[in-house]
């Protein structure tokens, strides 16, 4: 068949799913260790509080980014999974359905199960319909918690009652900025590591294939619905974990954590950071918080600055800041002598 091989274009090496787990685990371990150093280097409790919140939202942003990366779908209502998990922790504290440790696991599993079952219906819809339905689900939950005053405290929200120890660790560890930053940072690194392993796995390649060309994927022999629903579920589980960390740290939940504005902010983080890399949205979250903090000091109209940043990134860097970094990293070795 060599006669057919004519006029081949030269191109970039493929984005093959080559597993590099050992080096990847080393990088994850180094990042976790780096997280331990931060509280030692940052003396300000306020700064640590802000950083801890940023890391929690980074996990939420990573969960949305994973959905965009693997399924090509943007959720406008990912706060539903975040809030669902946080409210489960709060409601369990109030009604004592199960031990707090079990509630943590349930708060991750419930959004995943909910997303998988709804995903079996909505991931097959056009992208815009999917986005609008996620928004509708999140807003429905928001309204439910807003109006369910007797149980969930309505607009006033509700405290998250926690036992004195959780998983054998004193609860103060989860509520002090210095220690909670390390916990959240570790959770972020683990979430990114796990989602990266999934993205590079055969399952990850399959879901990219479905994203690229669903019909062709069926004609090479795969079912396409369940894998997409499973990606949605994994994404929701990560968002649920962020919600659990939020409830542990703040010990208080309000309907605001189910509101579309939180989903929107997390989506902006994912877009700014870029969903091409699993870690991109985490970078976007850090940038978002830095810009928000700096802009908030300058003007009460800080959302306009965030909006300008979003427009600039969308127009100039369609792959986000992580995409720019990846391009620079790809070019750099070629310039070496």
């Amino acid at each position, binding site marked *: 068949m060599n*006669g*057919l091989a004519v006029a081949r274009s030269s*191109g970039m090496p493929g984005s*093959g799913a080559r597993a590099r787990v050992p080096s990847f685990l080393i990088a994850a371990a180094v990042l976790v260790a780096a997280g331990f150093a931060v509280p030692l280097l940052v003396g300000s409790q306020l700064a640590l509080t802000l950083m801890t919140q940023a890391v929690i939202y980074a996990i939420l942003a990573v969960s949305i980014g994973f959905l965009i990366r693997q399924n090509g779908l943007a959720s406008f209502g990912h706060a539903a999974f975040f809030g669902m998990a946080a409210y489960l922790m709060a409601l369990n504290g109030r009604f004592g359905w199960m031990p707090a440790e079990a509630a943590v696991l349930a708060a991750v599993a419930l959004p995943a199960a909910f997303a998988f079952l709804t995903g079996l219906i909505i991931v097959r819809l056009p992208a815009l319909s999917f986005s609008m339905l996620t928004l509708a689900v999140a807003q429905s939950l928001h309204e439910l918690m807003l109006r369910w005053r007797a149980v969930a405290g309505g607009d006033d929200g509700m405290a998250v009652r926690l036992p004195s120890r959780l998983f054998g660790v004193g609860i103060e560890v989860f509520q002090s900025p210095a220690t909670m930053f390390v916990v959240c940072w570790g959770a972020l690194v683990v979430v990114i590591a796990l989602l990266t392993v999934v993205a590079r796995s055969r399952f990850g390649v399959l879901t990219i294939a479905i994203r690229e060309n669903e019909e062709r994927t069926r004609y*090479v*022999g795969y*079912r396409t619905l369940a894998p997409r629903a499973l990606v949605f579920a994994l994404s929701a589980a990560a968002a649920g974990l962020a919600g659990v960390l939020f409830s542990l740290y703040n010990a208080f939940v309000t309907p605001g954590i189910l509101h579309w504005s939180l989903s929107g902010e997390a989506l902006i983080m994912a877009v700014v950071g870029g969903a091409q890399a699993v870690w991109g949205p985490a970078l976007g979250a850090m940038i978002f918080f830095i810009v928000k903090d700096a802009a908030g000091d300058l003007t009460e109209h800080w959302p306009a600055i965030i909006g300008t940043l979003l427009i600039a990134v969308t127009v100039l860097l369609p792959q986000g800041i992580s995409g720019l970094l990846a391009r620079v990293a790809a070019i750099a070795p070629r310039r070496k002598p």
Partner: protein
Amino acid sequence: MTGFALEGIELSRRYGGFAALDQVSLQLEPGEIRGLIGPNGAGKSTLMDALCGRGGPTGGRVTLAGRDISRLPAQVRRRAGLARSFQKTNVFPALGVREQVALAARAAETDNTDEVLDVLGLAELAGHRAADISYGDQRRLDLALALVGRPSVLLLDEPAAGLSIQESLVLARLLKELAGSWKVTVLLVEHDMEVIFSVSDRITVLNLGRVLAQGTGEEIRANAEVVRAYLGSSVE
């Protein structure tokens, strides 16, 4: 139980009042290359779709090596051994060449990825993204996705579209070799009459959703109705 590799029995498909396919029956012998020709709108691609389970509801039945696959979804038909390529290049742009052929091989549970890449001259491009290779290479990649896993029946919808004359003839030779050595049965839709007449054991001619004629290349060339409806002087 029939001895046919693939059989379509009275296949019909309607779009409103228009019969795109009207009671078409087709039997392919194991290892046969069957050419499928006809003017635009004759129902060739619709017949391909009906055989592989694509598109809307279809009347009639489809059997693969005697097994009724009429109600099976496309992915199950593929795993049962019925593969197809598409009229428009249909690959996975963001995936590597080898990566996507290996993906298809896993579904077929027969990993002959390297063999297929070699046979189709894609081995050198194995690490490239599909989006970065030429159109001709993408056409061969499309064929590789259908061919990997050694399906028993291959439905090829204009595989030579966009290829040069030389590439088309090499492709024709390759199909002939594969049908012989891999025992693959091929149903080939192609507008390049040189390709069709050089590789096909038999040819079916469709016109207005119906079978106009069937026979060997010589018989089709000699069929006055076929010449009038489709061939004209193109194979003189």
